[in-house]
């Protein structure tokens, strides 16, 4: 019987958070599950969906088998089907782009073109996170590394990269793609076969570099958004 979420959460204190080091690279099975909903009226989603496209291209270039649950295909059912495949067919890496809250990563309601926020529904949450056992999860979304991340580790995921606060995206056209590059940096590193700790360091440095540039350019608001992203970017490990 599934343990109550409160019981599971109470055990989270045993889990090591932040800046711990996972020195071994990800398993050699190069199977990526990419989850990237797309809501037309949602600015963040439109941006992150485009950033994820670059991750898909990178993954294919690096020889990964990619299952791309994009837009209307990013349903809970499709995610759970992918996670429940037999061992050899299961993803070793799950990369999610879009909205998150403490215990939830969002996708789309059903297989139809998603237009409004009503189409945003939980696709990975406390009730199915155990399906990520043995996999590495990278969640480029708000907040999930503060709740779902530790729960994933408790349920034997091999690691969790994500954000413990809101993930901010600048809407300044001159800057937004640079935010995308920083968000993508750790995922590119994972796809190149770097260890999770390397990927974390690379991600942190990408944000730090962007912060320095924005400060130099006197873009104070964008700088502050980037510092928030940098400081709440986290790697969780067993």
């Amino acid at each position, binding site marked *: 019987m599934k343990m109550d979420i409160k019981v599971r959460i109470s055990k989270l204190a045993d889990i090591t958070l932040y800046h711990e080091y996972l020195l071994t690279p990800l398993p050699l099975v190069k199977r990526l599950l990419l989850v990237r909903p797309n*809501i037309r009226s*949602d*600015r*963040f*989603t439109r*941006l992150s969906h485009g950033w994820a496209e670059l991750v898909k291209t990178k993954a294919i270039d690096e020889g990964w088998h990619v299952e791309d649950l994009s837009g209307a295909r990013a349903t809970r059912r499709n995610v759970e089907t992918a996670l429940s495949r037999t061992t050899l067919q299961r993803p070793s890496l799950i990369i999610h782009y879009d*909205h998150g*809250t403490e215990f939830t990563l969002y996708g789309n309601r059903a297989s139809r073109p998603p237009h409004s*926020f009503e189409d*945003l529904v939980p696709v990975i949450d406390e009730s199915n996170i155990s399906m990520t056992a043995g996999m590495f999860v990278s969640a480029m979304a*708000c907040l999930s590394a503060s709740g779902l991340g530790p729960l994933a580790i408790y349920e034997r995921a091999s690691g969790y990269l994500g954000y413990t*606060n*809101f*993930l*901010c*995206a*600048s*809407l*300044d056209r001159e800057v937004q793609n640079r935010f995308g590059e920083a968000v993508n940096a750790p995922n590119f590193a994972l796809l190149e076969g770097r260890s999770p700790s390397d990927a974390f360091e690379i991600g942190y440095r990408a944000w730090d570099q962007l912060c320095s540039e924005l*400060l130099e350019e006197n873009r*104070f*608001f*964008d*700088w*502050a*958004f980037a*510092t*928030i992203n940098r400081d709440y970017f986290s790697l969780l490990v067993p």
Partner: protein
Amino acid sequence: MSKKVEEKFSDREKSDRELAKELDLMFLEKMIQSLPAKKRSKKIVAVSSRSFSMRDMLDEIRQETAYGDMFREMLKRIRLAKLMAK
């Protein structure tokens, strides 16, 4: 610490918190006033499913929402960065 001192400290903490919030609001209002009118309501950041202009940030801070807390943290960083840049 005696109960009386504790109470005084707690009152002071509360009034300081209010003062800090007022300062954040004033700082942001000044920044908004310094912008050309058409830029004041321009959305500058997307967070979660929402986009915010500087005016929206003011409202979030006034209402003490989770977004407001983050914007206050951000404003504190900007104030310090501007001071350090001088």
